């Protein structure tokens, strides 16, 4: 601290620097705040971890091939998820086929062609944003009403479930596609148009191909959310005991979350173990899907 006494100027300078420490990273208040943040993270993460670990412990005894090959049965030792897995694949597959083209087309229209000065285009934009936040059960009710309007008696069919989940996924796909399209620089569109390409050719051959990784990522994340949904399908009367493989759009079905939900409501502890094993399988599938989405984003995303 000798330099403090070397001169008035030096003293003033160092004093003013030291003054900055108040409110800096090491003041009591910021340390307290930091601790609070860590605590929040710890609680959230801790709860999640506990949940996963207990599920793992409960379900590990039933994590075997029978889980995926057997049909549900009254005896837990013979029961499996086979129709539920196939049902999930059917419903999510049909959802993807219905919503990806529709969502991408809607996004292309909104982003590339719609006149933003028109009030209805702005209204649609606002609505799409809001739809993404609507609780899933509302979409179940909407699909229920729609099917009833069409006079469909048996609403527990693959296409009905796909309709409800499609409504859920559509806004996610529209929003992520729009973001992917927006990331394509204007210069690319201009370059294409300056060569005499039509706006449609420009979208089809430049903007959309460059957006595919973003669209794929968004679609996978949207579909993985739908894969975990039970509520909208239960509203449509999804079956809880299916002993056949679904085989078409009009086939009855159950899905993994619904089967798991059903098993947890059984009194026998063995069924709870089965539910845990099913949950782990579902978690692994979701993890794989999200991992794929991240992989696609990192590997194929165009860096401009």
């Amino acid at each position: 601290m000798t330099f403090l006494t070397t001169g008035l100027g030096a003293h003033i300078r160092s004093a003013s620097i030291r003054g900055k420490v108040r409110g800096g990273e090491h003041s009591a208040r910021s340390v307290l705040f930091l601790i609070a943040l860590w605590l929040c993270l710890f609680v959230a993460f801790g709860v999640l971890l506990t949940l996963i670990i207990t599920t793992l412990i409960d379900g590990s005894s039933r994590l075997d091939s029978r889980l995926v090959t057997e049909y549900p049965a009254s005896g837990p030792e013979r029961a499996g998820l086979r129709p539920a897995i196939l049902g999930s694949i059917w419903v999510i597959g049909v959802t993807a086929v219905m919503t990806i083209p529709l969502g991408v087309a809607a996004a292309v229209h909104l982003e590339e062609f719609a006149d933003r000065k028109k009030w209805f285009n702005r209204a649609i934009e606002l609505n799409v944003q809001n739809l993404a936040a609507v609780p899933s059960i509302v979409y179940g009710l909407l699909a229920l009403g729609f099917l009833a309007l069409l006079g469909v008696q048996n609403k527990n069919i693959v296409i009905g479930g796909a309709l409800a989940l499609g409504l859920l996924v559509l806004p996610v796909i529209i929003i992520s596609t729009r973001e992917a399209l927006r990331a394509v620089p204007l210069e690319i569109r201009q370059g294409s148009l300056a060569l005499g390409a039509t706006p449609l050719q420009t979208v089809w051959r430049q903007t959309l191909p460059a957006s595919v990784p973003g669209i794929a990522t968004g679609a996978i994340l949207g579909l993985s959310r739908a894969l975990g949904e039970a509520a909208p399908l239960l509203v449509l009367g999804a079956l809880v005991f299916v002993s056949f493989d679904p085989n078409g759009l009009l086939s009855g079905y159950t899905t993994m979350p619904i089967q798991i939900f059903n098993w947890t409501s059984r009194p026998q502890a063995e069924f709870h173990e089965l539910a845990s094993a099913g949950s782990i399988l579902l978690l692994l599938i979701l993890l794989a899907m999200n991992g794929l989405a991240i992989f696609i984003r990192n590997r194929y995303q165009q860096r401009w």
Partner: protein
Amino acid sequence: MTTNTRAASYTTGSDQKRTIHFPDEHAHRSKGLPAVPNAIIECKDVNVYYNAFRAVTGVDLAFGSKEITALIGPSGCGKSTLLRSLNRMNDLIDGARVEGSVTFQGEDIYHREVDAIEVRRRIGMVFQKPNPFPKSIYDNIAYGPRVIGMKASNMDDLVEEALTRAALWTEVKDKLKQSAFGLSGGQQQRLCIARTIAVKPDVILMDEPCSSLDPIATSRIEDLMYELREDYTIIIVTHNMQQAARVADRTAFFTALASEETGDRTGLLVEYDLTKKIFESPADQRTEDYISGRFG
């Protein structure tokens, strides 16, 4: 315009008429300009607006066929705006509007029955920043001919020809399938020129094509322009006066004038002549000031 006072009016959002008066001294420019023989594009009293803002006013200008014409002037005087109005790239900007007439080979390009797509095919454009497509070098060149449905008996030959004309073939012939993004900035810009040549336009517009390039890459593009001049009409915007002096047959000098009422800066043509004349004995004091670096 033969009147001494130029006046133009436009309506603002509130539908109220506003008038900008330009002083007499600027009026002479539309008189007594040397005629351009063999003009391929002609502008008559062209005004370009961005909504109510008039960016360019009263431009009368003719571009000679198979000549290089340079547009120079301080930034913001509407050079890019005017250039984009020559091949209807302004159509893509919300609120942009062109008044007056722009003719290409005698036909009004803004006529109701004229397709902007066809105009852009005949009048290509190279941009300030190289903008290769995220595709292979080969596909960058083949893209244009493919989308316009050009009857090419052999696409490989077409690609080779375009790349050769753009003085790029020897550098890329062994990596045609590689991404265009791997090329240097100067190579990318020559690729963009090659891409434009591939659709065989009549005119190539270039908006400051060398502004992001180093001097060596710049001089290669200048050499290239000089070679292309045999077959193409080139209109180039440049902020580099030496470049205009080196490559252009004719040079148009623009400046921006602030309106007394609104303070909007509107671009107008000050002087247009043979490049030699513009640089050696400009008729207008403002041209001389700009050329000699006293302004802008």
